[in-house]
């Protein structure tokens, strides 16, 4: 696939990510985060959230689940930047409708030749279509 501005607008098929307590707990364990909000229903009930929520790195799973809207040579790619915009907390039982889309491609001349910055937005929405989180991934491609 030619990586140029013609890829802007390409999307993945929508996927559905069902969020389980175990998925949430695994992220907390992987980051060595003992906050009871992520694992202890009784303790989480006492907080203003009223129950378990997902840790803020959880959208990483949304990105992997959605996949990329384009194919490219991974050996030439670097994950340059990542932005998360949180619209609401992710909770167990959520069915997240996830889709990734190429939103921009910027070309620059670097010292070692042409560099391309591929910007991909992965959006997760709830069953009613309300936004939950937006992940903006910038891939540096040489």
């Amino acid at each position, binding site marked *: 696939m030619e990586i140029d501005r013609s890829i802007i607008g390409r999307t993945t098929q929508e996927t559905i990510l069902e969020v389980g307590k175990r998925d949430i707990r695994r992220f907390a364990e992987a980051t060595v985060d003992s906050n009871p909000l992520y694992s202890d229903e009784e303790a989480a009930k006492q907080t203003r959230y009223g129950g378990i929520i997902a840790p803020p790195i959880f959208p*990483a799973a949304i990105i992997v689940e959605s996949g990329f809207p384009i194919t490219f040579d991974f050996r030439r790619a670097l994950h340059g930047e990542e932005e998360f915009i949180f619209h609401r907390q992710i909770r167990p039982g959520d069915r997240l409708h996830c889709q990734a889309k190429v939103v921009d491609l910027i070309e620059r001349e670097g010292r070692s030749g042409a560099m391309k910055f591929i910007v991909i937005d992965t959006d997760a929405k709830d069953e009613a279509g309300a936004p939950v989180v937006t992940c903006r991934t910038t891939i540096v491609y040489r």
Partner: protein
Amino acid sequence: MQLNYASLKEGQQLEQLVKPPIDRVQLAKYAAASGDFNPLHLDDDFARKAGFDGVIAHGMLNMGLLLQYLNTLSGSTAELSRVKVRFSAMSKPGDVITCSGKVTKLYEEAGARYAVLDVKAENAPEKPVVTGEAVLRFL
């Protein structure tokens, strides 16, 4: 560690969070949690062929440690509204990640109070693996 909006000042350095050393089992746990099974993070032979000394940590795991720091700062007084990070270096098993932050801006908008923070995760002094900017909304 939880922040209190009224006592924050622009330019203020915030208390650090020092994480336990990254270990290989943690990389396997992160792979399972995220679904990112890139062998660069799990298979030493593969990583050596790719030009590294051995496996490296997922960049997103480093981001996760920085997000944990932001949530610790938020406590029950604020919520992480948005965060943008740049991946500047690799980390590897044995690395101790230290997260630190600084208040760059305080503002109110539509009745809500916000703090903008510059944050970074380093595996040695002045050696950032992830740097970023976050917006906390106070409750």
